[in-house]
């Protein structure tokens, strides 16, 4: 056992470290979707594209200011606002028109996905473009080095998660949101402006996706096709976590992030992805409602 640890200790340490960072990044990307899904009961298939928009806008900010720090700060403020407005617009002119019907919403947001992706292709181009991190430092462990910015992203993710949690629990908006989530008809009779709540939730979801895009893009890159993978991952995280449960989302992100980290350090990567995907499916088969069912927002 101890020789195994000697041989594999660094591997295990890296798997845990990388897995934790992955988990925080996943939770951050999934947060917006979780909110929309929880309160509005709809699946926003364009969520990944909103994330991509955040990343792409971040590149534009970086390109215009020509300074990593100022570009980052500009994007941090502007990207969520712009993307949030796009979300409000989509809510007003598309989703409301189809009365948030679950299946219609899937088709409409697939349409939205294509529109956003293609407009980005037209204005941003097909290239993969890097965005410099606002600051750079490398942490040297005895066996290997690790990016300092990645740890910052994990920290920011934790901040966003607690922010949203506080919003839900402590604010009036949060109260309205929870009321709408539990029963929209009752909420309406109690005078909750559900139409406005829906618009704000959708905007908030979009803004969070964009924020995630801005934070994550320095450790990835920006390109117009980057939305699909985060979409699938956040889907998984949200459903495994359980409908509309932020706690569930976080727990699921950790299960997936760390199991993916460990499995892929010790197995061949494609096999690892297969096992991890199957694991997710089996969790749902065993607990069809997700880890944290309905009422635990």
């Amino acid at each position, binding site marked *: 056992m101890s020789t195994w640890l000697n041989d594999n200790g660094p591997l295990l340490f890296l798997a845990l470290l990388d897995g934790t960072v992955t988990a925080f990044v996943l939770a951050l990307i999934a947060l917006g979707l979780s909110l929309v899904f929880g309160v509005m009961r709809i699946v926003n298939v364009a969520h990944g594209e909103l994330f991509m928009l955040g990343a792409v806008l971040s590149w534009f900010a970086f390109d215009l200011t020509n300074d990593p720090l100022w570009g980052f700060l500009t994007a941090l403020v502007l990207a969520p606002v712009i993307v949030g407005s796009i979300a409000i617009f989509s809510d007003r002119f598309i989703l409301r028109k189809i009365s948030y019907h679950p299946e219609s919403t899937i088709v409409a947001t697939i349409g939205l996905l294509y529109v956003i992706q293609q407009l980005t292709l037209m204005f941003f181009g097909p290239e993969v473009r890097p965005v410099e991190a606002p600051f750079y430092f490398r942490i040297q462990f005895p066996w*290997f080095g690790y990016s300092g910015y990645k740890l910052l992203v994990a920290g920011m993710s934790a901040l966003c998660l607690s922010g949203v949690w506080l919003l839900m629990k402590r604010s009036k908006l949060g109260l309205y949101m929870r009321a709408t989530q539990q029963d929209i008809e009752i909420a309406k009779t109690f005078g909750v402006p559900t139409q406005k709540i829906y618009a704000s939730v959708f905007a908030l979801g979009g803004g969070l996706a964009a924020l995630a895009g801005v934070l994550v893009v320095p450790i990835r*890159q920006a390109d117009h096709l980057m939305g699909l993978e985060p979409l699938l991952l956040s889907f998984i995280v949200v459903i495994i976590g359980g409908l509309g449960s932020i706690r569930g989302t976080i727990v699921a992100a950790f299960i997936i992030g760390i199991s993916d980290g460990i499995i892929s350090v010790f197995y061949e*990567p494609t096999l690892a992805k297969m096992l991890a995907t199957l694991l997710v499916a089996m969790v749902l088969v065993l607990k069809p409602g997700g880890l944290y069912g309905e009422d635990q927002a």
Partner: protein
Amino acid sequence: MDHEEEKNASDVTRRSLLGTSAVLAGAGIVGSQLVDPVAKTAFAAGSDEPIRIGFQAHRTGIGTVYGKWYERTTNAAAKYINSIGGIAGRPVEIITEDDGTDPKRGADVVEKLATQHKVDFVYGTLFSHVVMGSAPRAGELKIPYFVVSEGYHVASGKLNRYVFQPCITDVRSQITAVSSWIFGNLGKNVTIIYPDYAFGYDHRDYASAAAAKSGGKIVAKIPIPMTEKSFTRYFIKIPQNTDVIYHVMVGPGVLTFVREMGEHFGSSHPKLFGFIDSLEGVNITSPGLGFLDGSYFWEAMPRYADGYDTIGSRFYRNAVGVNDSGASKSDPKDVSTYSHMFGCWETLFAIKEAVEQSGYKSKKDYGTLIETIEGFSFFNEGIAHPQGSKFFRGETHQGYGQQFVSQVKNGKLNVIHRTSISDGMYEPETDYRKQSL
């Protein structure tokens, strides 16, 4: 049908490679000083019905960046060919259709080009899975299909008699050519990092074979799935005794790959040898690529003009609108896919040569045209073939050219070694000429 002979068709007579490559080396030196003789043909009086070439382009999907440059190169070549009198006195017309970099749409595009646009030839595909998906249709429709893919699919015998890859060296030959240089100059213990799909397996297998020959050793093989976005966890698998990391990554994760490798190793690290496929369309001075300084790359055609300065290559670079650093003249931020797109230019000239030498007039002459190409043994360096002379094997339908090794220094790629064609040769594994037309 003839699948029996397909499965064991390796009883081909051995060519005297030494002789051929000696001739070619000579042709290379002489040819580079000359303007291509074919280029002097004037517009002949004859049919002014255009030669229609269907271009299967990756305008959308993962191949878009390559697709954009393939299209620019193709249009530039067609423009130039028309300015010197077209093909056999007939103007060239390019009809472009998008395949979405998707094999199933690729097959539809071949069909559409052949039966609706009624083109003479289909041409220009890059991604190997699209070639695999499209080639059967070209064979069924019996229309010559010229690919610019660098995959080993054509020469391996997996396709059919209608498919040719005359002007871009296949990946097996590229690896064979540079591997011996790697083991001889960089180190014996090599860790290979490659994408976990066919293109990567070619690298894994042929680099291992080359290692066995030249006394090198592959100490670890690390496959990475195409969709991977984070690479840190793979670097820890690189063994301590590694002298050289041989990396070939494709897809959007490349820049992250390099940056994270830098974060992992810091200042002391094994030597690096990469395939430029990773950085096609990417500026070598992009943020995060500083780690690559001093590392080595395979290039098929040097991105920086001083790397291979011949009359042909200068003319070609100018015609496609690329500056001395390999970026678009109109937008220096728009970096080209210089080690691949020359294949489009050269392939159009190969089609020109084939049409003119076979006396091709219309679709009924396909048989003669194909047999004529199968009789080719090389293409001379010049304006028509700016990357260098090509040795062409009629039995495998594959062309072979020289390769380059460049080092990243002062924010640019500097050529430090040029292989000869014979360095990349291997025994042919098929003979398409035995298939019926």
